[in-house]
């Protein structure tokens, strides 16, 4: 863990409100997006994120500083998202439901590092996003952790509490499913 982050956590342990805010700002987008991928709904993602940060800050004294903080944080977030899904027995949303997803208070952020990219979700992107959202939540969570957070297979396994082999299999299945669907639609 980097020194800056270690120092931030130490300040949070002293109940420094500014440190709380800094920690939340640093991880809120990642947590919200993981929750969004897992729940398929922005309101649920916000609820999960709020509960995640409250739980993290209240139980920070139990965190082992020898382990990566973000793995611990995302593990709490994914457990809360799964709890919420279990409570509501929600199924992944269909592509047709996309577009009505974004409620008040949520805006798309810059998806990539390209200088002129900005936010550009054209029809092809929207279709691809729709295909991704048709995947089971557990697959979407893995894809998010791998591609947006650049987690290693080991980190994904620890975060989601699944065996390493399962991570590998699900990643393969996710790629294969997307490839087949893209082929069926005549795009790659």
């Amino acid at each position, binding site marked *: 863990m980097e020194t800056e982050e270690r120092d931030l956590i130490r300040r949070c342990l002293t109940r420094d*409100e500014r440190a709380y*805010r800094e920690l939340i700002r640093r991880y*809120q987008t990642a947590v919200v997006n993981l929750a969004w991928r897992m729940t398929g709904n922005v309101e649920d993602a916000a609820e999960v994120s709020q509960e995640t940060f*409250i739980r993290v800050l209240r139980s920070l*004294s139990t965190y082992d500083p020898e382990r990566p903080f973000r793995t611990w944080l995302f593990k709490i977030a994914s457990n809360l998202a799964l709890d919420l899904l279990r409570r509501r027995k929600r199924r992944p949303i269909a592509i047709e439901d996309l577009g009505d997803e974004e409620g008040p208070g949520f805006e*798309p952020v810059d998806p990539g590092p390209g200088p002129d990219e900005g936010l550009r979700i054209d029809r092809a*992107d929207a279709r691809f996003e729709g295909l991704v959202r048709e995947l089971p939540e557990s697959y979407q969570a893995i894809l998010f952790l791998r591609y947006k957070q650049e987690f290693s*297979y080991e980190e994904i396994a620890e975060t989601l509490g699944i065996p390493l082999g399962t991570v590998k299999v699900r990643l393969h299945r996710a790629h294969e499913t997307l490839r087949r669907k893209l082929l069926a639609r005549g795009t790659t």
Partner: protein
Amino acid sequence: MRTNLTCEACERELSAYLHGALHPAVAGALESHVDACRRCRLTLAAYRAIAERLAELPEISAPAWLESRVVGAVSVRPRLRRIWSGGLAAAAALSFAGTIGLIAWLPRIAHDWGLPDPTLWPVAVLRASLDGIIAFAKRLALDVTFYEPIARQIWASIRALEALPRAALLTLRTPEVGGAVAIGLTLGVALFFALRPSRTHQGGIGHACLSL
């Protein structure tokens, strides 16, 4: 030339290969197979394209209220707990000190105000209560003689019980026993609150009692 890796086995490893998660020997075998197999080469190219698009998936931003709500939730509880703990500590310390002081000074206060010995107060209260009950029964014109045996039995029980508070008060009035009981009680209460699981011991009731 194809290696002995089958296309199915190769496909299963393609995403792990893309992520650099394969053992070098397996990765080498896979590369050899892909070089020789057009189908697997196309699949790998497709996986690469998918990986690029996955890395560019749009993200949503966190709601603006998230930060303030979380900070509000985690900051209010400890503050309220500190205030509550401090108030409780002060109240407990005051009431404890008041009780000890009352026990120590009660005989003198009673003497100064011309009241009977405090050790006799419980007996006096019980007697007064019984007298009151009998007077109330008489006012209701009830047949007191009928109730007299019962009244006598109650009176005998009270006489037996009155020895208990009297003995306790007399014991407490001796400086050694009274002091020992006060110190023991203080330490017991202080230890209980000092040792109970709490993130912040400062400002707890244990500290207030120990400071007494």
